[in-house]
C-alpha cells in the first residue's frame, strides 16, 4: 500500500516518503538480522527456532528477512472491533481514525473539588459512563488505578467496571496471562460465548514489552494468549528516546519497528492470520527533568513515521492522542493534547489512546477528556476535506446571490450549513453574552457538562444474569489469588 493517509476529498497527509519507509525497513531488518532480540519466553523461542530463526544460547534470536516477510503476508490488513451489542464499532484499516482514553492513571483530578487524589471504584465507573456518552470517544481503557480493591484484582475489577458502564469496545491491560483469561471470560459472558467474542471482538489486549531489543516473559505470554483466542492485540513496546531508544526520531523508528516486527513474527507463528495491531509507544526523555514526556514535536513526528510504516506494511496502527505533561487542565494541557489529536487524525493513526492523560500518564482529567472530545470533533471535520462536487462548488448559488447579495437568505446556505462543524463546549458568543452566561472558561463549561452527563447519561445496562456471572468470575479469581 502507498505510504500516507488518504482522508476525505483528496486530503492527504504523510510524514515519510515511500523511499524513506523502505530505508527504515531495511535498517530495522539489519537490526533483527545482525543484533537480534533477547526473548525471555521458551515457547516463543521454540516457535522461532522451528520456523527457521537463528537462536544463540537460550534466547537470543536472530530474524532472517524472509521470516518477517512471511509474517507480514499472514497478518490481516484490517481488524473490526465490535461493541457490547455485537455492532461493528471500529474498522481499524487504511486511514480510519478512532480515539479512546488511557489506562491506569494513579491520580484522579477531581473535577468538582479540584483535588488530585487516588481513584475509587465509583470514580472509574462515573468516568467510564462519561466516555459512553461522548460521541468522539470510540473506545475505553481503564482510566484509573483502583485504590479501593485488592491490588492483584485491580485489572479484573477495572474490566468489570468498563464492561458494565459502557457498550463501547475496550482496550485492556492485564498483569499476566491469567488475568487476561479472566477478562476474556467476563467479555465472553457479556457477548454470548467465546466463539462469538472471537468472531466479533469487543476487546483488544494491550501489550507493552520493554525496549531495548528484548521481550519480557509476561508480554509474550499475553501476546500468545491473544493469538490463541484470536483476540486483537497491540504490541506497543514502550521506549524513551534518549534512554531506551535513540534520541533521534529516525533511530527511534528503526528500533521501534524492529521490535514491533519481531512481535508480529512470534504472534503470526502462533496463529497465522490472528489480528495484530502494529505500533510503539515512544515518550522522549526530557533531558533536564528526566521525565518521559508526551506529545512533544518529536513524539508527534515519530508517530507520523510509525503510521506511514504501518501503511507501508498494510497493517492497522496503534498510537496516541489527547495527552499531555501539564499538572492541571491549563493552557499547556490543551495545547499539547490538541496538537497531538489533530496530527494523529491527519496521520491516519487507526486507534489512538491516552486521551485525558495529564502529567505524563500519572494523572487523568475529565475536563481534558471533554475538551478533547471537542478537539476530535474539529479534527474529524478537517479529515473530511473539501467537497468539490457541483452542489458544494455552489456555482448556481453564487450566481443566484450575485454581486452585493447575501448568502444568509439563500436556500444553499440553509441546505448545507449543517455540514459545517458546530461548537459544543467552544464559546462563540460576543463578549456581552459570554458575560451574561457567567464569564466561564472552557474548563468551567466542561465541568458543567460533566455534571450534567454524570447525572443524566445512563448506558445500556448488562442483563442481570451477566452481572451475576461477572461477579462469579471475580469471586473465583479473588479466591484463587488468596
Amino acid at each position: 500500500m502507498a505510504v500516507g493517509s488518504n482522508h476525505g476529498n483528496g486530503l492527504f497527509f504523510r510524514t515519510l516518503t515511500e523511499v524513506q519507509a523502505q530505508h527504515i525497513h531495511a535498517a530495522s531488518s539489519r537490526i533483527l538480522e545482525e543484533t537480534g532480540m533477547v526473548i525471555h519466553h521458551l515457547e516463543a523461542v521454540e516457535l522461532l527456532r522451528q520456523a527457521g530463526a537463528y537462536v544463540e544460547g537460550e534466547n537470543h534470536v536472530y530474524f532472517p528477512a524472509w521470516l518477517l516477510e512471511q509474517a507480514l503476508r499472514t497478518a490481516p490488513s484490517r481488524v473490526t472491533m465490535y461493541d457490547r451489542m455485537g455492532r461493528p464499532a471500529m474498522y481499524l484499516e487504511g486511514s480510519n481514525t478512532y480515539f479512546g482514553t488511557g489506562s491506569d492513571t494513579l491520580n484522579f483530578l477531581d473535577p468538582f473539588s479540584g483535588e488530585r487524589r487516588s481513584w475509587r471504584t465509583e470514580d472509574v465507573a462515573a468516568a467510564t459512563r462519561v466516555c459512553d456518552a461522548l460521541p468522539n470517544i470510540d473506545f475505553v481503557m481503564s482510566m484509573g488505578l483502583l485504590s479501593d480493591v485488592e491490588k492483584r484484582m485491580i485489572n479484573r475489577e477495572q474490566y468489570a467496571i468498563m464492561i458494565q458502564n459502557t457498550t463501547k469496545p475496550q482496550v485492556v491491560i492485564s498483569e499476566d496471562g491469567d488475568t487476561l483469561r479472566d477478562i476474556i471470560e467476563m467479555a465472553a459472558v457479556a457477548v454470548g460465548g467465546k466463539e462469538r467474542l472471537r468472531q466479533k471482538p469487543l476487546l483488544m489486549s494491550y501489550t507493552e514489552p520493554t525496549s531495548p531489543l528484548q521481550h519480557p516473559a509476561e508480554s509474550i505470554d499475553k501476546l500468545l494468549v491473544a493469538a490463541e483466542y484470536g483476540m486483537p492485540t497491540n504490541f506497543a513496546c514502550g521506549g524513551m528516546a534518549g534512554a531506551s531508544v535513540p534520541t533521534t526520531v529516525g533511530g527511534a523508528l528503526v528500533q521501534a519497528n524492529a521490535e514491533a516486527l519481531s512481535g508480529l513474527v512470534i504472534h503470526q507463528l502462533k496463529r497465522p492470520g490472528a489480528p495484530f495491531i502494529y505500533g510503539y509507544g515512544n515518550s522522549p526523555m526530557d533531558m533536564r527533568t528526566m521525565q518521559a514526556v508526551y506529545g512533544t514535536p518529536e513524539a508527534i513526528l515519530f508517530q507520523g513515521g510509525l503510521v506511514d510504516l504501518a501503511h507501508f506494511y498494510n497493517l492497522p496502527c496503534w498510537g496516541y492522542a489527547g495527552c499531555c505533561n501539564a499538572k492541571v487542565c491549563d493552557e499547556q494541557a490543551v495545547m499539547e493534547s490538541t496538537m497531538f489529536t489533530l496530527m494523529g487524525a491527519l496521520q491516519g493513526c487507526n486507534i489512538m489512546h491516552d486521551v485525558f492523560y495529564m502529567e505524563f500518564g500519572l494523572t487523568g482529567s475529565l475536563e481534558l477528556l471533554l475538551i478533547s472530545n471537542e478537539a476530535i470533533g474539529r479534527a474529524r471535520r478537517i479529515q473530511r476535506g473539501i467537497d468539490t462536487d457541483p452542489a458544494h462548488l455552489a456555482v448556481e448559488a453564487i450566481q443566484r446571490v450575485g454581486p452585493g447579495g447575501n448568502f444568509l437568505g439563500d436556500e444553499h446556505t440553509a441546505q448545507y450549513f449543517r455540514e459545517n462543524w458546530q461548537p459544543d463546549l467552544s464559546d462563540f458568543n460576543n463578549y456581552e453574552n459570554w458575560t451574561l452566561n457567567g464569564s466561564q472558561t472552557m474548563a468551567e463549561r466542561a465541568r458543567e457538562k460533566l455534571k450534567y452527563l454524570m447525572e443524566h447519561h445512563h448506558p445500556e445496562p448488562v442483563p442481570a444474569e451477566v452481572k451475576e456471572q461477572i461477579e462469579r468470575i471475580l469471586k473465583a479469581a479473588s479466591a484463587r489469588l488468596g
Partner: protein
Amino acid sequence: MNSFGNMAEAVIAGDFETVKKMTQTMIDEQVDPIAIINQGLMAGMNVVGVRFKAGDMFVPEVMMSARAMSTGIELVKPLIADTNMPSAGKVVIGTVKGDLHDIGKKLVVMMLESAGFQVVDLGVDQAPADFVKAVQEHNPHVVGMSALLTTTMLKMKDTVDALKEAGLRDKVKVIVGGAPVNRSFAEQIGADGFASDAATATDLCKTLAQ
C-alpha cells in the same frame, strides 16, 4: 594547581581524550593519585552536579562528564590501595519483584556513580531475598529500591521486613523511589528515605552514607 583546574574543566566538558592524557601526564609526573581524583576529576564532577541542578547542563552532558571522570579513575585506580580509594559510599540498588521498569533506576545509578558512589546494580525483578543476599555480600551504606507499579510497591515493605529478619536492618540505610512512591509511604514501611528524582536520590545517599 592550574593543571588540576584544567583537568576539572576537561571533565566538565566531557572530553575523555583530554582527561585521559592529562591523567597519564600527572601519573608520569608522580602527582599524588588521590589528589588527582579529589582535586582534579571529582572537583570537575562536583561542578557538573551544581550546574545540572541549576539547569545549566543536561543529563547526556552529565553522563559524558561522568564517563570522562571514570576514564581518569581507571588509570589511577591501580596505584591506590583499595581501602584508600576515595568513594562517597557504597549503594546496592534494584527494581523490586514483578516490576520491569528500570529507566528511572538506571538514571539514579548513573547519577550516584557520577557523584563518586560505588554502585551495585542488581537489575529488575528482584525479590526481598535477593536484596538481603546482596546486602550480606556487598555490605553497602545504602540499599535502594525502585518500583513504578502500585502492585509492586508492596514488595518494598517485604524487603524491609526481610532485612530486619536477617538482622541487617541496623547496618544499612534503606531508600525508596519511583513514580507511585511518596514520602509517607516510605515512612509507613520503615524506610530511611525517599527521593522523587535521581539528583535528590544522590543528595539523600550523601547524607545517609556519612
